[in-house]
């Protein structure tokens, strides 16, 4: 029952994501099963405006490339 390595290593901002991204099947896409590369690329595209969005474009701008990559690694590793 000790803290899992994933739970202890949530990088800044990562734990907020599950406020919207939940189980598969919802209007907001689930992040389960996405690779770190996919998530990092999406965050980068949201940040630059290359990928249209309603909300994620505003949120992604709050994170640097390296912060986004850390979040992507965490989420792809099963963190929530």
């Amino acid at each position, binding site marked *: *029952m*000790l*803290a*899992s390595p994933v*739970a*202890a290593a*949530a990088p*800044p*901002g990562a*734990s*907020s*994501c*599950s*406020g*919207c*991204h*939940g*189980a598969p099947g*919802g*209007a*907001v896409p689930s992040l389960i099963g996405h690779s770190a590369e996919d998530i990092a690329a999406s965050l980068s595209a949201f940040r630059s405006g290359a990928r249209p969005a*309603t*909300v994620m474009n*505003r*949120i*992604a*701008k*709050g*994170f640097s490339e390296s*912060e986004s990559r850390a979040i992507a690694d965490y989420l792809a590793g099963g963190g929530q």
Partner: protein
Amino acid sequence: MSGIGRRAVLAGLAATALPRPALAQGARGRVAVIGGGFGGATAARVLHRAGLDVTLVEPAETYWACPFSNEVIAGLRPMSAQAFGYEGLRASGVTIARTSAEAVDGAARQVRLADGRTLDYDRLILSPGIALRFDALPGYDAAAAETMPHAWKAGAQTELLAQKLAALPEGGTVVLSVPGNPYRCPPGPYERASLIAYYLKAHKPRAKLIVLDAKDTFSKQKLFEQAWKALYPGLLEYVPLAAGGQVTAVDPAAMTVATDFETYKADLACIIPPQRAAPIATQAGVADRSGWCPIDPVTFESRLVPRIHVIGDAAIAGAMPKSAFAANAQGKVCAEAVTDLLAGRTPAAPKLINTCYSLVAPGYGISVAGVYHPDKGVLADVEGAGGTSPVDAPDTVRQQEATYAEDWYRTITSAVFG
């Protein structure tokens, strides 16, 4: 059985009867969480998952969620859609003390519970929510709230306002009063105004809604005002502070709402009064003169009493608004910080996100988002991030944001209570 049973001791004896906690790396600690809303229930879940001994103190068996309660008022949603229980938390292994916290002794690190037990803690997380300030608006008190509902804590008040709206005579006048900052859910009053207007337009088109505001600017203002102009012209009258919108007194017997300039006669009055942190925060000594709780932006530890952390609506969270999303995000960050502190680690500076949707009509959603970080001792906006939906967005975006709002509610309530 429960951790609380083992450490339930008579008040006054606990400080000497129990050993001091070990704070070495990996050590477990006892954490008490007061308040089972979006913040407290989240924190309890995360702490338990981290292997800590956590007790959630919550007297209610049903939690009535505020987000989407404006839809209930407008008859668009059943009240049952706002009800959540604690079975999920219990099943996941969180210990719940189904009683209220009567007093916190920050020096002795004890919580006195209403059922007579005492809860010792190494760290306490307070997520007590708001209290309505019945001393702040002449004429408005708990009795007046039965005539002029605030409906700012979901539950019986929500249903009361919904019933009164349904019973409004055709051609009647609804008056909605909005307090100055800060208060729970900054855009909430304007979503309420929108959905009441939607109800009136559909069911009582000759009725009128007057919104009396103690402010001149508010959250998502351009978006709300654009929508009101398009959807509810001649039906919704907005009176800002500069035009005399600040309510100075109410008279529930006469059904009047007074400002410095005018007295409005209402067939239905919804009065959202000024607010403060719930009484346990003041009792614990973590609320300042403002009535709210100053906190460290990294750990959410109180600036006033060590080892007590405050999250959710009760906290002064800088740029972060008092929202369910914010409380959920803070619950996670605070629980991680408490886990670190109990293990002798220094918590890293967090980043937090808030997303908040409002409905101005069914299928018409607008939003605001923000990203926050500790800066100069407070939680500040990360520059360049966040903001509201575009003012010139097409209907498809409004529809999508309404869908996202529904989905957000399903996701967050499932994550917190499921």
